[in-house]
């Protein structure tokens, strides 16, 4: 599962960069959308968004806060647009919290963060059936240090594309 998640941005990235020309076997499976995405990339480019934006799949949050910060809205919008145009693509929004405070409260906080991201996507027309939410609270930290530089990496929502 972890491997698939890592491969995906490469697929999305290469779809924008080179369309169908890539010879990677994994990309062959997604041949159909590759065409669609290449078309879509024009629109994306107009908004100043590119494959680089879509390759960002982590949204960060402030302490004990589930509001999406301004800097991340365009990233969420880019994913929303991609999802809207690829209605069979599904994602999981994984909510996370830093290690401070109690664990079940952090599960709730992580879910609220994921729901904040989801609401923005929904406003862009992403369908309910494309998005699943799961919160791991502080159980799956991205960085293990007990300091702010680690914590800020852990207060996050990960947009995980599901490989069909």
């Amino acid at each position: 599962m972890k491997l698939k998640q890592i491969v995906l941005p490469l697929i999305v990235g290469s779809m924008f960069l080179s369309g169908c020309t890539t010879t990677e076997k994994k990309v062959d499976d997604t041949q159909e959308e590759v065409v669609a995405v290449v078309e879509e990339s024009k629109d994306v480019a107009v908004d100043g968004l590119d494959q680089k934006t879509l390759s960002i799949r982590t949204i960060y949050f402030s302490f004990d806060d589930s509001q999406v910060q301004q800097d991340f809205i365009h990233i969420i919008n880019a994913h929303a647009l991609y999802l809207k145009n690829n209605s069979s693509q599904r994602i999981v929004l994984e909510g996370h919290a830093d290690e401070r405070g109690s664990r079940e409260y952090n599960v709730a906080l992580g879910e609220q963060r994921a729901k904040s991201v989801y609401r923005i996507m929904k406003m862009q027309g992403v369908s309910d059936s494309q998005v699943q939410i799961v919160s791991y609270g502080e159980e799956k930290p991205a960085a293990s240090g007990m300091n702010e530089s680690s914590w800020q990496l852990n207060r996050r929502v990960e947009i995980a594309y599901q490989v069909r």
Partner: protein
Amino acid sequence: MNNLFKRLLLICLICFYTPISYAELTIEITKGIDTAVPIAVVPFGWRTQGTELQPPLNLASVIQNDLSGSGLFKTLPENDMLTQPTEVENVRYRNWKALGQDYLLIGMVTKETERYKVQFQLFDIFKGVQLLGYRLTVSKRNLRRAAHHISDVVYQKLTGRKGVFNTRIAYITSGVKTDKQKIYKLLIADADGYNPRTITSSLEPLMSPAWSVDGKKIAYVSFENKHSAIYVQTLTTGKRERVAAFKGINGAPAFSPDGSKLAITLSRDGSPDIYVLDLNSKILRKITRSYAIDTEPSWSPDGSMIVYTSDRGGQPQLYLIPSVGGNPTRLTYDGNYNTRAQFSADGQSIVLVHGNQGDYRIAIMDMATRTINVLTAGRFDESPSFAANGDMILYAAHKYGKSVLSSISVDGRMERRLSFDKGDVREPAWSRK
């Protein structure tokens, strides 16, 4: 101030550093009291028709660890004993008085075919009298339980309070497997950390273990299906049942005092709320109805109330609500973060996580006066759990760059740490039986 604290800590460490090591676990008294009562626990005698030179278990050593681990007693090292009597005829009170001992415990183990007869006697050195004497017969398997039982009896006789040496703890560990994949385990062990056994393990997170009051079942949260679900596992059979796997959060299980219900957190209707699930009928009743986060329920001992965490006021604070639903009352006003409450067995206090200026500490609230008393000094203390007798609190803390378990007396005077060789140990839950 900080320096003073460090020096005090150092003194405590020098005075009370008595590591006890099992294969995986180390217990050290990190803070003790100088009024600890001196007691000599003499190695038990051994009688057998067979050829074994020693009983299968050194009971005196288990009892010594129990009593000194409580922080209330200071046990005499066996090397300092002038004599090692195993029968009352050989007890000379003046020998023990000379060694500054207040109490003396002696015993004898006799093998009778497949069972073991354990006899023990406790003496008051100053009064020169026997305080108690008992005999019990156990199987080989239960010798350790017998030793803890003796510790309980001695503890109760000398402190007037019930001992908890025969109880168990549940906890979660996470470690890295050889292929760098994380593995999560739910374990239970005896209260002294001995005899750890894995209840369940998963490559996805496990969390929030909770005991039934009778000590027969454990509820916990597992993400094994990449989604949270609540399971109830019967310890004797290993049989487990998935009791909640709704859309959204399935978390924070807590058994009702009679064991028939589980208070849980679900977010199936939107925001996380407290529900009560009847384990027999599977009927679900929604208890809280806020648009905020409501989670971490704990039952009052009479089952009438539930204390829980809610951020309905903007910050997480503790609230109290009737367990059949109703109007919540806010309990905490001191500080901007008060969460994860648990009632004591007598219902007179709750233990909680108290956050203040970035530090998270374990605190006790007296339910009559509603005052909070902060017990621990850690920065990242969490998951407090009362001992059945209410004397000690077990919690998780950060030390040496990892999560360890600690226990502290409710007056804050005694503290000990249980650290394991590998990985993080967290979310301790102390059984009531």
